[in-house]
Structure formats: C-alpha cells, structure tokens
C-alpha cells in the first residue's frame, strides 16, 4: 500500500473524497485516509453512467472484507464515465487512490461548488484534528 499522500491539485470533501476539477468536468475518488481506514477494498459498486449525483450525497459503495461504506459526491453533476477496471481489480483503490483507483468522471452542474471544498492543507488539518 502506498504511503500517505494528499496531492495539491485536488479538492477535498470532509467525507474523505477527492475531486480533480478540469473545466466543467471532474474526476472523483476516495482519499488515502479513506482507503487506509477501509482496508483492502474487495468490491466497488459503481453508479450507472448518466446518473445525477448530488454534492454530499452517496453515489456508490466500496466494500472491504469486513465493512461496506458509502462514497459521497464531493460535487454535483452527471456521471460520464465509470472506472470499469475496478470491477476486476478493486484493490487499485488501495494501491493508487488518486490515479488508477479513480472512481467516476462527472460533468459538473455547478463548478462554483468546488470553492466550498478543502485544499490539501485544510484537509490534512482536518485529519490531524481527528475527524
């Protein structure tokens, strides 16, 4: 499992999700902290392409051997693409949570929402404060 890291180019949601915003689209995933807390991910249950996701709402599930966790949308929009590789190799979420372990790509309905998310420094402060 990779070392803890929180890339500076991402925006962070307090439920331990990240968004990589590029214009009116964004890629979503879960943070290093989230995958470490879950343990080995053995199943990813994705939304269907075309689904509308709402900021702060659950849109998918990740499941470890012991537990199931909802994944929360850091931003609102329409699912354009799902990371199909995770069906066969969900452990990519552990190995590379910001790269090959991305979950979905979304067309944002309101890119201004990103302003309410945290940067890497603020997110790490949140982790240190113990939530």
């Amino acid at each position: 499992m990779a070392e803890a890291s929180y890339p500076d180019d991402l925006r962070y949601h307090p439920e331990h999700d990240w968004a990589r915003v590029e214009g009116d689209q964004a890629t979503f995933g879960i943070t290093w902290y989230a995958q470490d807390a879950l343990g080995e991910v053995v199943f990813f249950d994705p939304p269907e392409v075309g689904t509308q996701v709402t900021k702060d709402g659950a849109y998918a599930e990740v499941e470890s051997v012991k537990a199931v966790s909802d994944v929360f949308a850091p931003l609102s929009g329409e699912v354009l693409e799902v990371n199909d590789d995770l069906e066969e190799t969900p452990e990519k979420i552990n190995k590379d949570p910001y790269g090959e372990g991305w979950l979905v790509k979304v067309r944002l309905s309101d890119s201004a929402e990103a302003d309410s998310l945290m940067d890497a420094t603020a997110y790490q402060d949140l982790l240190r404060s113990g939530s």
Partner: protein
Amino acid sequence: MTEAGALPAGLGSRDTLRLEVCFHLYGNDLSEDRNPIEAGLAWCCKLDTGFIGSGALRDLEPDQTLVPFVFTGPGIPRQGNPVRTPDGEGIVTSGTLSPCLETGIGMAYLPRGAQEPGTRIEVDVRGKLRPAVVKKKPLYEKEPASG
C-alpha cells in the same frame, strides 16, 4: 514475526475460512431463535439419549433450514440480507467475499423446497437483487495433497 515475513491475520480471515467450509458461527448462523434441526445440526442431537429438549425436537419438520449459497454475479452478501426464492423468502445469516472462490458466498435460512443444491435464488443486498445458487456443504474443498 512480521519481520520474518509473517502477515497479521485475525477475525476477518477466520470468518472467510470458516464460511468457505460452512462452519456455523453462533450469533450469526445459530441463535436462540433457531432450533438445531433448522440449523442442520441434527447429527449432533441423539434423540434416543433423552437429553433435555429432545422431546421438543422429535418429529420436528422445520419450515426453513440453513444452506450455503454462492453468488453467480457481482456483489457480497451480508448478514440480514433478505433472500427471494421460488418457494418464499429467506434470510442471510453469514456472508463474505471468498478469497479462494473469488465470489460472494454465504449461508441463509431458506424455505423448504428452495434448499436443493442448484436452486436459483436472489439476495437483496441493500436494494440490489444479486443472483445466487444454492450449493452443498462445504463450499470449498481442499485439493488432495499430491505425492
């Protein structure tokens, strides 16, 4: 030990191992609400010895019994998931992803008629119906040692 290459393993690995061979876990598959005949433990109940409770078990034909099943598609069954069968509803008492079989496996109390190996069932995993098939115990059999 870990420096010498050992890996930590605990309840999670014990649970997948016991479920692959269909060993019951008290609190999941066995409880005060289920009698030993339903639970498939008739072989432990020698009625002729007249043990306390033997009268209550005599001639008992339970409506449900505990059987193992395997998912034929994606998903992982979990304790408490409802089961749909051609013969009525059932309930999952244990479920996990089997590392050896690489699919979702579990045990469920199913109505009479749906207990035959090969019966197609559906498990309601948090609102999604996942196809599964009833199997014989154990779900995993060790390959005979060679040589």
